[in-house]
């Protein structure tokens, strides 16, 4: 047994050396017109050796290590408490949620501009993740091209503004409905596909949209994107330094305060917050309605659902359409926030990130998804000092989360009634 372990550990260590030394230890450097190899600095070489040693030791003593990890005391102080009574719990939840919402409304006036900007981005991703949650989490349809609807929403607003001068509030429903239409259209080809074929077709669809946006330069500006997208106006007031549209007044002039860049950031944040809350509430409503139930039935067992009379076509199409609708919302807000969009913002990696958020949050669970969105967007920002390693750690974190907690942060809890315990 020990010998077996030893051989295995040695093998793992050698593999570690093989995969690290050539890539990390030998750098291709362009010198003049030639490419030459340079050995990496000693720090890198030492860390490669250390990594190999660590792998060796870990594999050798793996059983011991995993055993002691399992025996570690549960650190959660609430673990052994009795679950609260249903009604009391609901009231507590309502109170805390209300406090949170009020806090979210007041908070931006107290912190720096960068934080509010970041929070707006988080809320956009929350909307996206909630929308994708409908398709993937609730209906169980593996959609890898969700970013296409996001792009449709964003470009709709950008183009409508560029050609017809349509403002944010009008473009919002138009963009969302157009995205929903695309969702509906995508639903048809994939009706008969299952599982991974569905995934690849949706992926292809996402890529097609991005490539079309990249190539139709006459319409979409191609890789240069579309700029000059305005911020939303409230009651005819603009929040910038100068008026962009004829006939609009300026916020800081109307209220006689000095101009600060914070105004438009905060206003955009508040609008996004309202939209995100709207999204969450609407989807929550849907889950309690027959539509939502039929999505879950489809996810659990498609054949059983069909045998019970559910129309597979309408269920799938409704899931795609509604999911896409909220992506359209998010796209419009994103276009306004950044002021500029290009096909680079809508690559497959975005779809992957949104999917990761949904899975990380626990598929189907709204609160979990919100938490996961906050975590996925904020943590890389906190790690700004390691900015080079950010994406590296992000990929690693995705893998680790799947290994250690695949059910997500907050697995979905269905509405249920608990039987009272017998005394």
């Amino acid at each position, binding site marked *: 047994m020990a010998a077996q372990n030893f051989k295995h550990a040695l093998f793992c260590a050698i593999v570690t050396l093989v995969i690290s030394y050539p890539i990390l230890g030998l750098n291709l450097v*362009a010198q003049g017109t030639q490419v030459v190899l340079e050995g990496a600095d000693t720090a890198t070489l030492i860390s490669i050796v250390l990594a190999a040693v660590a792998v060796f030791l870990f594999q050798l003593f793996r059983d011991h290590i995993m055993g002691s990890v399992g025996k570690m005391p549960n650190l959660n102080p609430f673990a052994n408490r009795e679950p609260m009574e249903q009604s009391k719990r609901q009231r507590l939840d309502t109170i805390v949620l209300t406090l949170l919402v009020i806090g979210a409304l007041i908070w931006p006036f107290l912190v720096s501009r960068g934080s509010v900007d970041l929070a707006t981005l988080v809320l956009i991703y929350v909307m996206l993740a909630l929308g994708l949650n409908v398709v993937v989490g609730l209906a169980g349809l593996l959609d890898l091209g969700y970013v296409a609807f996001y792009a449709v929403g964003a470009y709709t607003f950008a183009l409508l503004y560029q050609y017809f001068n349509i403002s944010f509030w009008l473009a919002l429903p138009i963009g969302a409905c157009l995205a929903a239409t695309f969702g509906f259209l995508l639903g048809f080809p994939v009706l008969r596909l299952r599982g991974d*074929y569905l995934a690849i077709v949706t992926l292809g669809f996402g890529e097609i949209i991005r490539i079309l946006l990249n190539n139709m330069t006459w319409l979409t500006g191609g890789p240069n994107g579309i700029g000059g997208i305005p911020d939303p106006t409230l009651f005819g007031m603009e929040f910038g330094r100068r008026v962009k549209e004829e006939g609009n007044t300026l916020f800081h002039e109307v209220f006689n305060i000095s101009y600060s860049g914070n105004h438009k950031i905060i206003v955009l944040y508040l609008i996004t917050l309202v939209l995100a809350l709207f999204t969450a509430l609407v989807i929550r409503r849907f889950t309690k309605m027959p539509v939502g139930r039929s999505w879950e039935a489809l996810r659990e067992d498609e054949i059983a659902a069909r045998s019970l009379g559910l129309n597979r076509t309408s269920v799938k199409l409704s899931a795609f359409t509604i999911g896409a609708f909220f992506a359209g919302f998010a796209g419009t807000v994103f276009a306004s926030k950044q002021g500029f969009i290009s096909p680079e913002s809508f690559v497959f990696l975005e779809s992957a990130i949104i999917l*990761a958020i949904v899975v990380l949050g626990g598929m189907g669970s709204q609160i979990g998804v919100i938490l996961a969105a906050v975590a996925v967007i904020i943590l890389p920002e906190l790690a700004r000092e390691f900015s080079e390693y950010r994406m590296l750690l992000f990929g690693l974190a995705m893998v680790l989360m799947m290994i250690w907690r695949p059910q997500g942060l907050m697995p979905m809890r269905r509405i249920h009634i608990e039987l009272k315990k017998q005394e």
Partner: protein
Amino acid sequence: MQDLLYFLQQLINGLTIGSAYALIAIGYTMVYGIIGMINFAHGEIYMIGAYTALITITGLASLGVAWLPLILIVALICAVLVSSSMGWAVERVAYRPVRGRHRLIPLISAIGMSIFLQNYVHLAQGSRNIGFPALIQGGFQFGDPDSFQTSISYMQITIFITTLICMTALSLFISRSRIGRACRAVSQDLGMANLLGIDTNRIISATFIIGASLAAVAGLLLGMYYGSVDPLFGFIAGLKAFTAAVLGGIGSIPGAMLGGLILGVSESMTSGYLSGEYKDVVSFGLLILILLFKPTGLLGKPEVEKI
């Protein structure tokens, strides 16, 4: 005549790139056939193979080695070694612990691994395009030198022949050898294979290693053919190869080959006769069309759904 030569040239271009896609697509299709998951990190394995080949070639050049066949063989061996080790490691670290769970979990794990590997190479080697020496040069021309001439370069011939050899070797391996037989068994029914005493873990690892080796070969070949490497090019190639695998019917090795060739030729023809800008749209459009009429791909086995 000139039109025919032009068509022929685009056909040759397409078959070349198609063969390369086929080599990479095999990795996807074998893994899917055996454990039913999409290995998103496979494109990065291909990229790592290309980088390793370049590193080896540069190293040999600086040591003064000049004999071409030796350089190529050593580069090939090193690329295959590093790629298969990477493939093996990725399977052990990221896929084995999540095997058998809901299909989204390994998918996210694979995507995470893909991001990790891209950035690993990016941090280690920089993000710039690094030139790959053109070791095999020259070729044949035919046609009238005054008007259009079709040319086949030695590099293109090398790619065809290498792909052919690899495919034949793989088919023989799968159909004749013991491990090949075990691979087929495991892909048919994992549980039963386990009961019959096959070490399924080993077989699955072997599958990853085979796929990774072929991707490494493709990395060396395409690196020489195109001329540069950068950390991101594996992803695009991987996506196309995966499309090819699905086109041909995922899980079927001849399907991967067929899908690769069809995809390569359709890209080339679109570029040649319409515009290069839309070749990817045509590829994906083709995929969607085929899946509409044959949901399991061209050579895929129809999935029987059991209740």
